[in-house]
């Protein structure tokens, strides 16, 4: 068993629902107990969809367990077919139904419906949401994309524009809607036509046309790489899975796609397609240099954010991690480039501990990191699912492409205190309105009390949630030098966002030299030793 306060991913059948809900003409019959329909509100409330997801639940109850739950399932499949008349169906079990082993695939097959019925095996006690989405997409593509082309099939039409499929956007995906708009714009600019987008907006019949494309574009490898690999093997379609988040990544994406399509990328890359490079070079951004940033999310978004932070905004990446175990190697490799160790975990408490230890000035993470950052009083921006309703905005808000880079510049910088205020706080510490106790005034200046409490007294158990495993400084503190009162007072003059780092550096400095007492002198000696 695993103690879980927050979970980064839902169970795998949620992933299957995301694929089914993204498509039309596909119905999902899910063998599940009463109550699992909560998943509907992810789509109707968080994503604000205007229709119920195309999912029929068997919603069996305890009284049904004594009877024939298999019959309930068969009836549900038959009724769903009658009512919705889908082009194809997927059938599967949720975690509880997996335990009672009714074999949804076999039962549905016995009904001999006149449409393809695709059984899903989603091991709920081993796998999670993104895996479920990936597996479902792979099964759908395998079942519906048709037989491989025969050797004597006619070659594709001469003189037409290159044609590609876009794989990956789903329902409930973080900014998938707007990413797709940006990618379509880029492809159109390159002179490439889009054959089918899968799964968002596709029908089962559309999946039958996948083979007509020249190549595939994988936008979200977590979800679509497996399907792309199948298509590569079966239809000999190469694929691009460079994720175009950030200016450099988008340029690499454009070049890779152009190479596959045999078109010229230069016109698309000409001019200044994104405002990020200029905004980032403008002197107003100088104060962003070396800001300590902690990054966590799904692998796709965390990797992209790390590169943008380090090479496009000039931040210092002090923490990088993902809950996507399938991409652990990539994340570790990227972390190594920043001189840190990648954090591969889905335990919220461990992420919390790592953020606290990193002394970050900015957290780029998921909805869960917003909880942590709020508690620690650190500015935070959301870069990845899991997300809540505010991250399905009405306005156009892509992460991908050149417009996505504009959005990301604004998003990453917004939570930070603005330059002038930061300078003034460093100079004048006794202002009654603008002082350490309040947050950035452009954000309404919320109290910073909690942050101070944690940074000030790492040994005392923080308010209610006493995160026992978080006492990273425990061993340290037992041997740590004590602070002279005037040194402690001097420390308070250091701006809050670097004060934690200054404190730990000074203590480290004192420890290495076995100094029993930290004086004002020690503080400045340490400052000279470490630099900022």
């Amino acid at each position, binding site marked *: 068993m695993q103690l879980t306060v927050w979970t980064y991913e839902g169970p795998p059948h949620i992933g299957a629902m995301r694929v089914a809900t993204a498509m039309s003409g596909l119905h999902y019959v899910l063998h599940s107990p009463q109550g699992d329909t909560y998943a509907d509100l992810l789509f109707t409330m968080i994503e604000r969809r205007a229709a119920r997801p195309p999912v029929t639940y068997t*919603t069996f109850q305890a009284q049904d367990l004594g009877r024939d739950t298999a019959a309930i399932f068969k009836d549900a499949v038959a009724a769903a077919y009658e009512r919705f008349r889908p082009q194809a169906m997927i059938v599967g079990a949720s*975690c509880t139904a997996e335990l009672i082993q009714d074999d949804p695939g076999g039962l549905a097959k016995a009904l001999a419906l006149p449409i393809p019925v695709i059984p899903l095996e989603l091991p709920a006690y081993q796998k999670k949401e993104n895996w479920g989405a990936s597996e479902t997409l792979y099964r759908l593509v395998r079942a519906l994309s048709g037989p491989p082309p025969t050797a004597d099939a006619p070659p594709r039409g001469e003189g037409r524009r290159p044609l590609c499929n876009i794989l990956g956007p789903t329902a409930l995906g973080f900014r998938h809607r707007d990413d797709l708009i940006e990618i379509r714009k880029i492809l159109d600019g390159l002179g490439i036509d889009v054959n089918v987008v899968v799964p968002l907006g596709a029908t089962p019949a559309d999946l039958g046309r996948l083979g007509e494309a020249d190549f595939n574009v994988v936008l979200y490898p977590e979800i679509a790489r497996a399907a792309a690999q199948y298509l590569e093997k079966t239809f000999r379609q190469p694929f691009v899975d460079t994720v175009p988040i950030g200016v450099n990544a988008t340029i690499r994406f454009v070049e890779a796609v152009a190479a596959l399509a045999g078109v010229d990328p230069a016109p698309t890359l000409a001019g200044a397609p994104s405002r990020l490079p200029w905004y980032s070079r403008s002197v107003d951004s100088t104060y962003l240099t070396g800001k300590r940033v902690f990054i966590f999310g799904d692998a796709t978004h965390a990797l992209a954010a790390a590169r943008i932070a380090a090479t496009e905004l000039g931040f210092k990446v002090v923490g990088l991690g993902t809950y996507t175990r399938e991409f652990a190697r990539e994340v570790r490799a990227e972390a190594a480039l920043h001189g840190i160790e990648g954090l591969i975990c889905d335990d919220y408490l461990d992420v919390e501990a790592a953020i606290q230890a990193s002394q970050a000035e900015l957290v780029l993470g998921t909805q869960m990191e917003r909880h942590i950052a709020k508690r620690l009083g650190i500015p935070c921006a959301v870069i990845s699912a899991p997300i809540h309703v505010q991250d399905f905005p009405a306005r156009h808000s892509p992460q991908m492409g050149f417009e996505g880079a504009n959005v990301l510049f604004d998003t990453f910088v917004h939570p930070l205190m603005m330059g002038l205020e930061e300078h003034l706080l460093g100079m004048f510490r006794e202002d009654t309105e603008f002082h350490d106790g309040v947050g950035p005034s452009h954000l309404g200046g919320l109290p910073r009390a909690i942050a101070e409490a944690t940074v000030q007294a790492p040994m005392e158990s923080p308010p209610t949630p006493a995160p026992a495993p978080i006492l990273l400084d425990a061993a340290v503190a037992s041997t740590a030098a004590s602070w002279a009162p005037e040194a402690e007072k001097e420390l308070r003059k250091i701006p809050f966002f670097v004060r934690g780092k200054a404190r730990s550096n000074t203590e480290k400095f004192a420890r290495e030299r076995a100094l029993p007492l930290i004086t004002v002198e020690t503080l400045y000696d340490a400052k000279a030793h470490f630099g900022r």
Partner: protein
Amino acid sequence: MNAHAPLPTSDCNVEIRQERGQRAVFCGLTGIVWLHRKIQDAFFLVVGSRTCAHLIQSAAGVMIFAEPRFATAIIDERDLAGIADANEELDRVVTRLIERRPDIRLLFLVGSCPSEVIKLDLSRAALRLSQRLSPEVRVLNYSGSGIETTFTQGEDACLASLVPGLPSDPTDAPTSLLVVGALSDVVEDQFARLFTAMGIADVRFLPARKAGQMPAVGRGTRYLLAQPFLADTARALEERGARRLPAPFPLGSEGTTGWLQAAADAFGVETERFEAAIAPGRARAATALAPYRERLSGKRVFFFPDSQLEVPLARFLARETGAVLVEVGTPYLHRGHLAEEIELLPRGTLVNEGQDLDAQMDRCRAARPDLTVCGLGLANPLEAEGLTTKWSIELLFTPIQGYDQAGDLAELFARPLLRRRLLEV
């Protein structure tokens, strides 16, 4: 658990139908969302799957930025391999939790569908852990699984698990009043003041706000249900010798009066004193309700099943605001506890117990009600079809009981109608 008692009167004036099929309702785990705030030093540890963790987090979690007092022990493959191992694992998880949260005094091990299906004996685990952690922490267990409980029945199961451990009144103790069901703090305080004004001195509330302050029960206990979904809790209280005071539920002015009257009758409160105690509240409720009567009168309302609050709410809307009831869906109808409510429903009201989702949606679409009360999974899709909806979960998260909330309760139903009138886009 959901066995049906026979109807108290065969010639009741409402039509009760039963329906089976797909149900769009929450499971009992959802009760944790408000219970973890009501009992301030309790912690709810769900023993279940990632689905359970995801459910609670989706229903509440992502909106709550303070550290919650709930978590999930997620069962994995290794636990499924053998039961003995699962018990050791549970002990390990609980130990880690208690170390992390030494402020916990009461720990609920909450059963889920997976833990029920693999027959993990959480009651024995609770006993074992209670012995190990006492006296600092008491460990109880109940089931919030979807196969056994629907939404608010999770609170019923939770409170029922508290009852055997409640202190005992001495046999010769004078009669006391127990109010059962989690109420918002403000409503609880209002009721306490009203009972004091009526001269009922010894009034207790279940659940209490602290684990160490749970009320005593005994043969002298008379209890009032503040919520309609407390079948098992009531049964457990009866086993401890307590007696229920039959009453409608304290929703709206009429319901509140009937509810208070039941206590007044049982405790021999004189009519004048009772009238004097309730007069100010009743007058305020009348004032507060008047404008909503105008706005809701004649509006046709359709209830999808959700919390078992539907029948009392329908009674309130029909009798105090003049709304017309198209269909009153309820996940489960306790004939005994709701007898007073059913009596008050307008003649001919259709009460639908259970659900066959698609069929019920067809009926709703055909009836085109002015207002549809339903869960969040249905609300936006029905709005998109042009129906005005009131999402029902809000009724559990808002103070709605008592005289001083009667206007607020009506406002919850009037607001979506007003909004539809206001929006010009």
